[in-house]
């Protein structure tokens, strides 16, 4: 097995709000091999955006990375000392910083010496090694500058080019993402572009510095289906030519099927299943993944035949005890309300297929799932269920 390009280990990002601690990302681990498109899929609110922002350390107040590790090649983007926190390290200059909101905050974790500084992140990682594309192409470009100008600024910032050379590189990138009439479109402002064209511009911007990894946070969610298809085709084509790795965030299993090599399914801040795309679709191991798959519309089905997941995802500020999915899981048993299964290998050949579900006795023998009493979520819809679609 090759060395991964990106490794995320037990990453935790919490938001310290007035109402309490929101555990938006609560201990996720995955990696990305060179040239691979890795999906991060889950419902809205699962923590996908927070997770990918954490990789680049872009989380803003009141959010904070509180633990775990992110390594990129041999560089540590996120890494903390094991259990020491600033609060109990006497004399640490952070602890006498009175700027924090009063009360309720645990001590900050202490960064390890090899963790990159903020300026190193800015100069070497963000935009150069790892680029990110955000969801809303309508709002990711600054309305006051021309599209070409923004692309050029980005190239000047991250590559050793300026003036005409940078301009030419920018036009070249616009051509590369199949924007017709690139030379002329260079001078247009963002509002003169359609959503799909803007998303192409953003992809051009992400690719401009030939990063090894592009993080795409639901880049096609705001687009309509045909435009989405064209963008996915473009990305696949570019991926083949540039060999760039992708972390592809989406809530749409259809997109996953089309573009990803491997998939991480996220639910309420945790990864519940991790597998190659074929294994995930044909040998689904987690009931939540199954529910997501059941909700993909197929051409031969009408909307009524869809099988949406019962209930709504609970709030990350107050996740259910035990398995976080047990309030909506059709297979939930009594033991699920007590134990929160970590993600463990359930099929070992090749790259491991992992799942966080007690059903898999071989991986979770201690839980004794099959001896436990079913709690019958199917007959008794969750109290706050919105989608009672199948009656």
């Amino acid at each position: 097995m090759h060395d991964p390009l990106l490794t995320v280990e037990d990453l935790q990002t919490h938001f310290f709000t007035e109402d309490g601690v929101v555990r938006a990302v609560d201990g996720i681990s995955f990696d990305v091999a060179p040239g691979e498109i890795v999906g991060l899929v889950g419902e809205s609110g699962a923590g996908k955006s927070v997770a990918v922002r954490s990789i680049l350390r872009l989380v803003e107040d009141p959010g904070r990375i509180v633990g775990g590790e992110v390594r990129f090649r041999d560089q540590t983007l996120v890494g903390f000392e094991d259990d020491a926190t600033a609060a109990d390290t006497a004399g640490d200059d952070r602890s006498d910083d009175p700027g924090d909101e009063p009360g309720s905050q645990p001590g900050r974790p202490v960064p390890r010496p090899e963790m990159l500084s903020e300026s190193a992140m800015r100069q070497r990682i963000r935009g150069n090694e790892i680029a990110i594309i955000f969801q809303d192409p309508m709002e990711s470009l600054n309305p006051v500058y021309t599209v070409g100008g923004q692309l050029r600024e980005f190239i000047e910032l991250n590559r050793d080019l300026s003036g005409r050379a940078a301009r030419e590189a920018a036009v070249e990138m616009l051509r590369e993402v199949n924007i017709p009439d690139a030379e002329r479109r260079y001078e247009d402002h963002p509002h003169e572009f359609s959503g799909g064209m803007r998303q192409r511009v953003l992809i051009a911007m992400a690719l401009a510095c030939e990063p090894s990894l592009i993080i795409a946070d639901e880049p096609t969610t705001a687009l309509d289906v045909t435009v989405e298809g064209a963008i996915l085709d473009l990305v696949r084509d570019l991926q083949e030519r540039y060999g760039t790795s992708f972390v592809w965030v989406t809530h749409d299993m259809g997109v996953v099927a089309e573009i990803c090599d491997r998939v991480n399914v996220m639910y309420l801040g945790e990864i519940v299943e991790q597998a190659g795309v074929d294994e995930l679709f044909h040998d689904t191991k987690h009931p939540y993944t199954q529910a997501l798959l059941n909700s993909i519309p197929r051409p031969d089905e009408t909307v009524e035949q869809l099988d949406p997941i019962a209930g709504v995802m609970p709030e990350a500020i107050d996740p259910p005890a035990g398995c976080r999915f047990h309030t909506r899981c059709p297979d939930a048993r009594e033991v699920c309300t007590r134990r929160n299964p970590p993600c463990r290998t359930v099929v070992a050949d090749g790259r491991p297929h992992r799942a966080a579900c007690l059903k898999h006795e071989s991986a979770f023998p201690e839980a004794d799932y099959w001896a436990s009493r079913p709690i019958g979520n199917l007959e008794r819809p969750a109290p706050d269920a919105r989608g009672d679609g199948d009656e």
Partner: protein
Amino acid sequence: MTVAGHTSDPESGADAGRGDVLAPGRDEGRTERERREDVEARYGWRYTLGQLRRDPTAAAGLVVVGLVTLVAAVAWVDAVLFDFLAEFGVFAGLGVEQYALAKAVWTSPVAEPAGTPRLLPPVGLENQFGEGTLAHPLGTDHRGRDILLRLVYGSRVAIQVGFVAAVVGMLGGTVVGAVSGYYGGRVDDVLMRFVETLYSIPFLVLVLSLVAVLGARENLTIIMFVVGVVYVPEFARLIRSRVFSVREEVYVEAARAAGVSTPAIIRRHVIPNSITPVLVQGTLRVGTAILTVAGLSFLGFGVNPPTPSWGRMLSISRDYMIQNVWFSIWPGLAILITVVGFNLFGDGLRDALDPRLKN
């Protein structure tokens, strides 16, 4: 669609089954075109100029502002730039000196011409000193100088003061407000406390005491900077509230994610997108600054005689009201028209740039 145009309502019709559960909160109710028009409404300069032309009061304001500024610019070249250049042999050799232009066309605005009657009325009128003539269409002042010429040269003081004060206020306010708003937290607390303190002191009191402290009774440069500094708080507050929303924009986050440094983000992304209300307010403040400095001249602060300024003309003419009331009326009118011009223009600009602010 119930509410036409800009308000979005996330109705998701057809894919409700899936949408309820899986679709993230995005505004599907809005068509691409509506969103584009909305953006265009806020950022198109052509649109702005079109709106201005359609608004007659704003257009009148624009004409006044343009004319007065043009006259002032010529006067500035003749009075200030030529004076400066005359120090260099090359230019002096070419005959460049202060008021060279005025002298070439007519006569120096500061010289006291022998033999011209003082306090003449405008052409066509008559008073105890004589009959108004076409040679002095608006009449003459207490030293027999032509009032029209003095008005023309006084305009450069007014415009210079107005622009410098407004620009100082805008620059200072923009930097303070943008930094304060972008960083938030303690930086914001400190800067805003300072700003509020300045803001709580009555305007004229603050100006007068600063001018007095700086010993700048007759130093126009210091006076206009002081007026500008006193404007800083209001500009700072204006832009800060805007920055609070702009810093949350996706393109700001995208810039951070691309490795752009914070100062560059403030300069390139935050300020350009927050500056509109500052420009509008700045236009209005040019007028107020002119009025303030005219008021200060009335109190004896301002340019040295014999440099012509509207405020000084007004102040001196008090003593000659009975003999020639026109000596007072003309500079008063000049100030009035200019200030009203800037106000109309600024109001029109505001309406054109942001139709939602119209009241």
